[in-house]
């Protein structure tokens, strides 16, 4: 227990990196995933083919392979760009795992978005057309409110997976929560306490998110009423 107290700085720093990585790649993958999902749902053939190609390939290879590949291929480019001088955002490991996690999760989110859009009944869209709403009005007032409330549980569970998947960034040496714990027990040989602590922290984060999603399932329009 004493060792955990002594090394709590390292653990907190790792936890911060995990949370930042989760939040940033969550936001990016949400944007990218919506674009890809809408592209695959659209009637424009080239867009459809390209997005389907990306989604299917990404979904069938392991995330570790993805992270390592992005790290080995993109780090020379990232090093030459080098915009951030921060010690978290500036590290190549953080940047490449951010890119890999965003791309990987966006493929899954695209499928969720596509199935959400598909679940809106055609009668509703036809009725909206008959009322004279244009494409954007249809999306804003008819399709999205309906689709978002249906997509919400799946999206939240995808974000839970994303938080869990950030632990894989330790393969390229990013010192996030898992790796920081590993560094401590390699020094102190207290695997039991440290791994239990890490598991409990991950459990609290992920289970909290899943409780939130269960609440949303009971009140699906809460987000829309807030003006989302």
């Amino acid at each position: 227990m004493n060792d955990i107290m002594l090394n709590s700085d390292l653990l907190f720093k790792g936890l911060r990196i995990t949370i930042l990585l989760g939040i940033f790649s969550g936001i990016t993958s949400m944007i990218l995933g919506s674009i890809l999902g809408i592209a695959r749902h659209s009637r424009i053939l080239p867009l459809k083919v390209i997005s389907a190609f990306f989604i299917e390939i990404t979904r069938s290879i392991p995330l570790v392979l993805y992270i390592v590949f992005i790290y080995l291929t993109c780090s020379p480019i990232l090093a030459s760009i080098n915009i951030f001088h921060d010690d978290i955002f500036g590290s190549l490991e953080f940047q490449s795992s951010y890119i890999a996690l965003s791309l990987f999760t966006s493929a899954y989110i695209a499928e969720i978005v596509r199935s959400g859009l598909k679940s809106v009944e055609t009668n509703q869209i036809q009725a909206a057309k008959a009322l004279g709403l244009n494409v954007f009005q249809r999306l804003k007032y008819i399709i999205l409110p309906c689709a978002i409330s249906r997509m919400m549980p799946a999206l939240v569970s995808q974000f839970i997976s994303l938080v869990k998947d950030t632990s894989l960034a330790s393969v390229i040496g990013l010192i996030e929560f898992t790796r920081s714990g590993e560094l401590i027990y390699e020094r102190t040989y207290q695997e039991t306490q440290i791994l239990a602590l890490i598991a409990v922290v991950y459990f609290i984060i992920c289970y909290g998110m899943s409780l939130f999603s269960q609440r949303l399932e009971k009140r699906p329009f809460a987000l829309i009423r807030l003006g989302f």
Partner: protein
Amino acid sequence: MYDIDFSVILQAQELILQGLIITLRVSILSSIFAFILGVFVTYLRDLPNNFIKIIANIYVEAARNVPLLIQLYIIYKVYPRFGLSFSPINCGIIALSLYTGAYIAEVLRSGMNSIAKQQSQASYALGFNYFQTFFMITFPQAIRIVIPALGSQFINLLKNSSLVSFIAVVDVFYVIYKGAADDFRIYEFFLAGALIYMVLAGFIALATNILEKALKVYGREVRV
């Protein structure tokens, strides 16, 4: 300029094949165990005993909300402290089975929820006990509905099996990573690795489709 040269793959052919065998062994064994575990947990959660239900729920939530990597490390590094040591490959199989078993239990539960309550009530009225009702009446109907979701869980298991390389099991990912890092032939090795996983995942998807069509019952095309 980087010139692509696939002869490195041919040279590493043997190693890749050995890794493939390990990956297949881990994924096939753990999918069998995970499926059995998932069915067992679904049965426990279907019993009218609250205590058993709570225990099963705790297992499912714990396994679903902790990263697989941490579970793997716990089995590999903490269990030996309590006198339970396994070889790395068995650790991988245990961790993958426990992790995927919880997901399969959850998928099967969503299938069970779509079966009308009247069916089990009718079978109790006819004198079937819980075990018979579950395995003869409700479960066979539930599993047909969730075959696509089960297939995607098995694909996830295959992809997650690459994590066993973190505890020094020489599977396909390990061979690919080593090859790419040692010879600096990144594109060749990763293309080969991606292809291997895509082909294996494609086989599972194909099998799922065939099974879904073979077991389809007309009039019950419920989407979960």
